């Protein structure tokens, strides 16, 4: 735990303007030095309330911290986050304009042990896991209040939670709620909306009205109404729309009654359930004496001919008594201030407030200046208020929308038009649709380069690696790393040499002569066994396809002319498959009409041909890996007799003997 004394956060943030280190801008808060005296029984939240947030809800936590900050709390209300799936130890949050680090615990027990001052939990666990996590939380006697946010908690589980909570004296708010808010003290999760709304509804300083509502959305509406018609909200709780909320209207109404600072009680009930009647009973037997403004929503249900399940799970009348109309009448009869309709509620509230001000029950305080809160970067960006250069740019695919896009083409179209792997390559590699023959040619290259037997060096490396027991990726990569100038690199080399020759205007004979004078082999020319009379079928396939489909095959024609020169010297100096593919690919780039001359050169320089070989050969290398695995071959060890050990003699001289290979090290 950070042990540094509490900083006045603003001094850390704005101080001298000289910031040396990121750490200078982090506000650290120490645990309270002594246990606090317990608050009054009716007080659920106070300016020192400390809470855990269960679940990685950084946005909600930030909202709570911002609320704390504009309410001039000295410490954040959130002590720590409990997140069972987390490997994270801290979460960085803003405290005003500076930052603070919130501990993140994987286990509730640990969080409890570290933070004995915490008595409140905002539980964001899902409807599936909220039952077990809430039961666990209630095992720790220091926890006095749990807000359950999840919707869709099974009714039986909700009842079990509230039953145990009652026995243990824990206050449950929810399930299916946004929570509650007490200006100057505490805000549960997302209650009250964004900071601009909190400020607009004056929730940064306390008023005189305590409300209870079922609906979370409507509680925000109440914040608005109360701030416009009275001196503001004292405390508000949304108990949640389920059939069995952990605490109901009466629990909070009794707290407001007991709290001398709360002057007006506001109740927003709903069709379904009988909980409003318990408030009526409390008024009738004198438990509640403060004035209550009340309304039950769902009066329209009487107009409908069939039963309608409203948005809240609990909002369905099972008897006449549970209808909104009956409730409103009963509340009116009990002396509540019940408006004609919900729209008239502000009027009624305003009248009552004015009356209480007039008789001195409420003394309005001077309005403090509304606080300012820095805007979150991401929010400002969403509002279009700020901009910043991006660290990365991507132009080929986009996964943000409804559908994945390849160079602007939706994935569904990719399949609808059946553009094949060649089409996908042209979209992702070249950012454009190429003519069908070009896609087909790319596929042809992949098919031709897919494998060339187990004996070539790349395949060998893959096989040996596989036999050493390595996984697919390691084995594949072992083979791929072999690719370079000598193995598989002929494609790139051939493309460069032939292109240079053509571009310089060398005749095929001149080209061959120059290469010979420079003692250079012509890449792409020559085959171990094939010859002019015994041609390589792969080359024939490519040639035929290209002649038939390409608008121009100038490079290919040139390469064949070169072959005529070289084969006249030696029969097997034919244009091999690498050379053929390379020159045809240059033909494609230069003449298919989809690339400018610069682009064509650029792509060649970027090594796109190597890309083709790597992609194609990966098929074969994976195949060799699978083959060896399938055959269950063991570790390969090369036989001694196949390695010529030079300079060691044959009878095995002892180490350190005369034949030891020495490296002189200068001293």
């Amino acid at each position, binding site marked *: 735990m950070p042990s540094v004394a509490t900083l006045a956060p603003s001094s850390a943030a704005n101080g001298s303007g000289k910031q040396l280190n990121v750490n200078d801008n982090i506000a650290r808060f120490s645990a309270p030095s002594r246990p606090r005296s317990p608050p009054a029984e009716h007080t659920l939240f106070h300016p020192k309330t400390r809470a855990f947030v269960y679940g990685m809800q950084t946005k909600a936590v930030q909202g709570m911290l911002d609320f704390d900050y504009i309410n001039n709390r000295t410490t954040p209300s959130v002590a720590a986050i409990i997140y069972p799936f987390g490997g994270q130890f801290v979460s960085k949050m803003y405290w005003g304009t500076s930052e603070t680090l919130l501990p993140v615990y994987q286990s509730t027990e640990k969080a409890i042990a570290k933070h004995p001052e915490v008595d409140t939990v905002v539980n964001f666990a899902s*409807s*599936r896991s909220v039952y077990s996590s809430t039961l666990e939380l209630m095992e720790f006697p220091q926890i006095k209040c749990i807000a359950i946010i999840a*919707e*869709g*908690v*099974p*009714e*039986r*589980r909700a*009842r*079990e939670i509230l*039953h*145990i909570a009652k026995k243990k004296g824990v206050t449950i708010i929810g399930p299916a709620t*946004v929570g509650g808010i007490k200006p100057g003290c505490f805000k549960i999760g*997302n*209650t*009250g*909306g*964004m900071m601009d*709304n909190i400020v*607009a509804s004056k929730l940064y300083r306390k008023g005189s009205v305590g409300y209870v*509502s*079922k*609906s*979370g*959305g*409507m509680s*925000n*509406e109440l914040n608005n*109404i109360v701030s416009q018609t009275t001196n503001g909200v004292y405390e508000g709780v949304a108990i949640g*729309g389920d*059939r*069995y909320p952990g605490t109901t209207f009466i629990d909070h109404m009794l707290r407001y009654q007991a709290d001398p600072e709360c002057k007006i009680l506001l109740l*927003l009930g*709903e069709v379904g359930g009988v909980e409003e009647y318990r408030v009526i009973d409390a008024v009738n037997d004198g438990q509640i004496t403060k004035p209550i403004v009340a309304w039950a*929503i*769902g*009066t*329209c249900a*009487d*107009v409908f*001919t*069939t*039963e*309608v*399940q*409203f*948005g*809240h*799970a*609990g*909002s*369905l009348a099972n008897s006449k008594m549970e209808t909104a109309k009956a409730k409103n009448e009963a509340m009116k009869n009990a002396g509540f201030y019940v408006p*004609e*309709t*919900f*729209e008239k509620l502000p009027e009624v509230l305003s009248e009552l407030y004015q009356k209480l001000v007039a008789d001195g029950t409420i003394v309005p305080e001077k309005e403090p200046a509304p606080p300012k809160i820095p805007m979150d970067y991401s929010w400002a960006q*969403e509002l*279009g208020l700020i901009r910043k250069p991006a660290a990365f740019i991507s132009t080929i695919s986009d996964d943000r929308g*409804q559908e994945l896009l390849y160079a602007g083409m939706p994935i569904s179209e990719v399949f609808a038009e059946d553009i094949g792997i060649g089409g996908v390559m042209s979209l992702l590699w070249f950012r454009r649709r190429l003519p069908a023959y070009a896609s087909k040619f790319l596929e042809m290259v992949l098919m031709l380069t897919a494998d060339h037997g187990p004996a070539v060096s790349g395949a060998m490396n893959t096989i040996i690696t596989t036999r050493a027991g390595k996984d697919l990726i390691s084995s594949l990569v072992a083979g791929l790393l072999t690719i370079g100038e000598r193995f598989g690199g002929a494609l790139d080399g051939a493309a460069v040499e032939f292109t240079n020759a053509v571009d310089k205007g060398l005749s095929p004979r001149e080209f061959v002569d120059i290469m010979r004078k420079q003692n250079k082999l012509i890449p792409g020319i020559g085959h171990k066994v094939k010859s002019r009379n015994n041609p390589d079928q792969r080359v024939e396939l490519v040639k035929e396809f290209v002649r038939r489909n390409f608008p121009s095959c100038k490079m290919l024609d040139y390469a064949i002319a070169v072959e005529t020169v070289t084969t006249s010297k030696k029969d097997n100096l034919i244009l091999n498959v690498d050379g053929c593919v390379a020159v045809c690919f240059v033909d494609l780039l230069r003449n298919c009409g989809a690339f400018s001359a610069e682009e064509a050169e650029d792509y060649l320089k970027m090594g796109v041909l190597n890309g083709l070989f790597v992609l194609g050969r990966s098929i074969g290398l994976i195949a060799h890996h699978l083959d060896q695995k399938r055959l269950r071959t063991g570790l390969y060890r090369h036989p001694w007799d196949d390695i010529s050990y030079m300079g060691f003699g044959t009878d095995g001289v002892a180490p350190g003997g005369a034949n030891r290979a020495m490296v002189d090290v200068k001293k």
Partner: protein
Amino acid sequence: MSAKSVLEADGKAILNYHLTRAPAITQSTLPPPPHNAPPKLASLYFPEDVAPETVLQTAEATYPWLLAPGAKFVAKPDQLIKRRGKSGLLALNKTWEDARQWVLERAGKPVKVETVTGTLRQFLVEPFVPHKQEEEYYVNIHSLREGDYILFTHEGGVDVGDVDAKAKKILIPVDLKEYPSNEEIAATLLPDVPEFVHNVLVDFINRLYAVYVDSQFTYLEINPLVVIPNEDATSASVHFLDLAAKIDQTAEFECGAKWAIARGPAALGINTGALGGGKVDIDAGPPLEFPAPFGRELSKEEAYIAALDAKTGASLKLTVLNSNGRIWTLVAGGGASVVYADAIAAAGFGEDLANYGEYSGAPTETQTFHYARTVIDLLLRSPMREEGKVLFIGGGIANFTNVASTFKGVIRALREVSPQLIEHKTKIWVRRAGPNYQEGLKNIKAAGDELKLDIKVYGPEMGVAEIVPVALLGATTKVKEYGEI
């Protein structure tokens, strides 16, 4: 999602299967019984596009016991209709031939029950259980905040009357450790029942309640529950002839497998050969269905929104109240949507109100678009009115839904059908607030003006449903439209 009614056939299948399998809450007075034989429940669904005769022929192949010689049956619609006996929707003690004819005459036909008219599509045919009037009992379990009440009366049947007044009641606390003793149950619930069936009935009630808990029922009524004594009157057999139940849909993740296995072909004794090659379910039986109330079968649009709702963490609800109505609502928020419906009803336009619905919990732009488009399509399909139509795009002050983003979806929907909206003389009233509402309201106002829609836009200065009296009754308001100075 909430507690919802289930088909009688499903309720019976779940009881039949789990009565002997649900974990016991209390010590039984009887030795553990063998598992029940598969129940004989011929659940017949008559879709619009299949001839009823075909359905019946398929049923005869699936349920060969229907054709057993001399067998007698009960036939009834299984569509959450209350008091079927009194509405003449119960055929008792019929041969299959007669029962078949009875069903055939009613399948696919509309029928009015009390005030509600609906089409009969789902029937249940079961073997008839001959019994005497005095063997009929009534049992009901329902859940309240403090626990579950078990109601029992020895006078069950069609004329059970006011059970609240005459039934014996016992409250079972939420904490099952406080479950009453067998003696207490017998003494509280069964004082009017012959003593020799006490053992059987207490055991049955214990098991029934165990299933109620284990499969997360929230309501269960059996009337009549028939208890037929054996010849020497030492014991009895129990039959649940008529059943109505509600099950908590939110418990699907805990009970889905239990609901499914009880209704799988194996548990129902159906030869899977006949059904082979069907789709693969996630459990050992079909997922439990929660049918719409009688006379309120889901329309295509409602089913579409329900399917959309099931696929997202956001909430999308739509109920068409009157497809010919001229006032349509597109409201965000579970509470606000009710306030809008209230305000419309309070203004005296309850009969013109076409739908109830809400979207909330931060749906995406596309989800909102599909939702809005569905509502607007329905609006455009309702007959044109001389006085025009009204569309409320309302909502409270959102806590965390980005208003600009959801409104983008709404605007897209408006854009697609703006000429038709004008043709239908649709007046659009907007009120919304919450994160980024400024942007949302500005955009919808701009789009409305551009599309020449008759649109009025308000922000948080206007009360949540205050636009309703302004729109419908011409009430005056001091609040200016959003963006006006």
